[in-house]
């Protein structure tokens, strides 16, 4: 058996009311591993149940544009596990890195999205 605390159904409501989600998780994550400007890569992890890390991002290089908020990752939160809070980052990808046949005339085009720390590693 795990030592996971048992919460009532209203736990999240009580925690977030008047504060907001993800604001209600502020201060709960360990120190952020990455900072703005860091060159990272999206890890190619298996996703067994639920994820919000799109397949098209996996394994691709990116740059941190902002350290945005603390929250449990979707993989945990979707099962109501909210104890492991981590930092989320806003990341900029080059379109030509995401799609090999992206037209070279538009080599400057980019894509920005957010991911939790667990999905990221230094490039």
């Amino acid at each position: 058996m795990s030592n996971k605390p048992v919460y009532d159904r209203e736990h999240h409501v009580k925690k977030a009311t008047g504060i907001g989600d993800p604001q209600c998780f502020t201060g709960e994550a360990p120190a952020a591993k990455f900072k703005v400007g860091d060159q990272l890569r999206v890890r190619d992890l298996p996703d067994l149940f639920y994820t919000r890390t799109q397949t098209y991002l996996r394994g691709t290089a990116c740059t941190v544009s902002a350290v945005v908020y603390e929250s449990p990752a979707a993989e945990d939160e979707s099962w109501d596990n909210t104890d492991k809070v981590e930092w989320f980052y806003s990341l900029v990808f080059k379109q030509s890195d995401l799609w090999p046949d992206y037209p070279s005339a538009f080599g400057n085009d980019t894509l920005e999205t957010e991911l939790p720390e667990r999905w990221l590693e230094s490039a």
Partner: protein
Amino acid sequence: MTSINPDKIVLDEEMQARNLDNSPIDLLEQIRQEGRCWEDLAPKWGVDNPEPPWKIWLEATCEVLADRNCALPALERRWEEDDLSEELYRDVPFPERQLLALAHLMIRRGLIDEKELAARTKIVEKRLHMAD
């Protein structure tokens, strides 16, 4: 690692939900074929509101279904709505399409019963026409 039993049950339910039966439902087929859509009614009566007045109640219904009791999680509704809107109800204008999709998936999920809904539409129709 510990066992994944509780999650497994939820997963099975979720996977089942994703394989929604999108074959036609008699009651809704009839409404699809014979129903008068807002985009035809509005010009007929000289109304320029782009949306029917009931759209806001439909939207509120979708929200509250995902609230508190969470009878119908928003993400699953959206997935099923996409499926039905792209196939069975693709020729119906919006938001009538969204309403048919919602009624369809609620029936298929067993949240409401087709016969009950058919009976209720008769009652509502009668009530609305009492003022005529």
